[in-house]
């Protein structure tokens, strides 16, 4: 494919892994700084922090909506095309929530409402964290079983870890909240990221031939794989944003960021490690 100018065989393993490792380090610092300043590595959405979200289509301006909900702990109003609004409120007492849901229905009978209590949000947080840990451990075990060799397995696991860490840092910088949907996207990223890593590792370690040819071939296949997936996700994202389908838009945007980062991690970090491993004779 002509648009890709990256020649995987031009650089030494050392040169290849520098950029991803530096980014991983920066991501670590961003997440640490965010934890230090706000208490969590990534901003928590209402699923985890508690609160209320209202999805509505209305020609009302943001100022009008703000005025209407002046009595409630309004956090933000996101606008999208064709008058879609996504209004977020902080946690509130039961009575106030009842009053709010009546106020919403009065003015916007076709609004969707979602509310999560603060303590329930904490429970969901713990559950999501458990899911993330179990997924990651499970993935690592499968990878180790598949390759039965330390360096290639560690390379795959490291690049999946780096995908998640850098994507989370990007979410933190862009102010994309962590919700159930985006947690699912991060889990899915574990699966997606390993796809291209396994392709790379299998091609290089299990096929005969020149290393440069195998790397080049793996890259061509891997790149087309990731771009087709990206195209499906971009289509999904465009429609979801236009139609104000919050959860799908959130899943799609995290996956898009994650897959772009995965391109880097697979073809610089993982490929760099594999190249070094084969050149030093680890394949025998």
């Amino acid at each position: 494919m002509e648009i890709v100018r990256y020649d995987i065989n031009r650089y030494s393993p050392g040169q290849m892994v520098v950029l991803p490792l530096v980014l991983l380090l920066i991501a670590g610092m961003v997440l640490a700084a965010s934890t230090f300043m706000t208490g969590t590595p990534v901003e928590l959405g209402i699923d985890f922090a508690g609160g209320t979200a209202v999805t509505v289509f209305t020609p009302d301006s943001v100022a009008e909506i703000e005025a209407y909900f002046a009595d409630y702990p309004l956090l933000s109003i996101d606008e999208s095309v064709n008058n879609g609004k996504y209004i977020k409120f902080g946690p509130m007492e039961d009575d106030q929530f009842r009053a709010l849901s009546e106020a919403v229905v009065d003015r916007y009978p076709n609004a969707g409402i979602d509310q999560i209590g603060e303590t329930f949000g904490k429970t969901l947080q713990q559950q999501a964290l458990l899911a993330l840990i179990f997924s990651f451990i499970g993935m690592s075990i499968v990878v180790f079983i598949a390759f039965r060799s330390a360096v290639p397995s560690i390379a795959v696991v490291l690049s999946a870890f780096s995908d998640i860490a850098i994507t989370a840092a990007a979410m933190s910088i862009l102010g994309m909240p962590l919700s159930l949907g985006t947690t699912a996207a991060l889990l899915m990223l574990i699966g997606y990221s390993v796809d291209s890593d396994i392709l790379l590792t299998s091609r290089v370690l299990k096929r005969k031939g020149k290393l440069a040819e195998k790397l080049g071939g793996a890259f061509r296949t891997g790149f087309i794989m990731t771009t087709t997936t990206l195209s499906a996700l971009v289509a999904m994202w465009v429609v979801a944003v236009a139609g104000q389908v919050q959860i799908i838009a959130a899943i799609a945007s995290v996956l898009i960021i994650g897959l772009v980062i995965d391109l880097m991690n697979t073809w610089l970090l993982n490929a760099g490690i594999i190249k070094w491993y084969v050149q030093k004779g680890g394949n025998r």
Partner: protein
Amino acid sequence: MNRDTLKKLVTDWQVALVLVLVAASLIGIYLAPPAFQNGIEGNLQFGLDLEGGSWLQLEFQSAIVGFTTDRPMNEVIPELEQQLDTQVLLIDENTVEIQKLYTRAELEPVFAAAGAQIVSYQQGVSQETADTVKRTLEEKVNSLGTMDAKINVLTPTGSDYPQYVRVELAGVDMATAQEIVGKQGVFEIRIQTTGNESVHVVYGDAISSVSPPSRESMNGAWGVPFTLNDAGAEAFRQAALTYGAVDNPEAHHLVMLLDGEEVFNGALNPSLANQLRSQPVRSLQATTGTGEEGLEDAKSLEIHLRAGALPVGVQIVGSGSVPAALGEQFKTMSILAGLLALVAVGVVVYYRYREPFIVVPMLAINLAEIIILLGIARYIQQLDLAAIAGLIAVLGTGIDQLVIITDEVLHEGRVPSPNLYMKRYGRALGIIAVAASTMFIAMLPLALMDLSTLRGFAIITILGVVIGVLVTRPAYGKIIMAILSK
């Protein structure tokens, strides 16, 4: 492609399997039972966010406490009940359910005073109580006519006891949903006078507590123990004396009504009748009968005695509603997103291979994968927005893996000799099997966790990966081989 190739293809078992499954799925979605009136949706089930409706997530205000004591249980438990002002149920040898939410720190001194020591504490209820809650809620919903309702008891991962119950009501707004869940019926106890006539004795507010069904030691009959308050017990005694139930129990049955419907009809027990002659009796038991049937009746009666009140307090910890119109719009958007994703994938793949003989089978197999997935999902999983995101993600991984197969088996657009082809084909399947296993493992926790609203997402993704790796992707390899070797 000529007739021979086609014949060879259809007789290949992997390709045939795909065709059979696609046909079966289409039949399941549209024909069994016929669902033409639903248009493109057929028999697929949709979640609340696409169908419109409301959900409430309720948390049990109750604790399960394990403890040790040297004293007999029948002394400790009444003391606890009195101190804590709530029912305390023994659920196994040394574990109790306290039907009011106290923190462990609040309970420690109370248990210490009763000569017991707490060894474990968890928020939640026993499985039996959770079942009663579920049945009570189901009964309330059913009493309002046919309504599409789902009531699920949820146990957080890492906990041993149910802690939440989730109520989903299709086509109902949130205010109505809250009303239905909070609604209580009117319960009344009456006494038979002559013939079919009866008179009022007490209302449900005279019942101070209701216990789960228990078995009488004498005859093994099931019954529901309950207690009346002092005023209620006095009224009960007076009625039994006035209408002659004490002297002739068989002719003067007790009748219990919930919202005007009879839920119990039975005679006063002779020994109870004797007791009533001298004093009011607070603790009563309504006997329903022996065996399985007696137990089932007792369970229903327990719910009726509570008149729709739940055995433990609940708090709304989450809720939501989607109006039907918004759900409809989400549905349209989801279909659009899926179609656009398929087109986008088609364009990219065509740009890469420029070969209709590769691109068309690729997209066809992808479509087949989604049809089979929907065909299975129709029976096991309702589609919500998250599940649709999963569906589109599956489309993405599906194409990924078809690209792996294509690039693995083809060399500069040509198909090698059959032997070499099969070897490479096997290697490609090896790669996708490993990739699929990791996706499967990564999604498994979400699919198993009770609490996540992302079960649909995880289940659809897992299903898609499994169908892909076992059925459709191997078939694709065969199709490419048959078409391109010509």
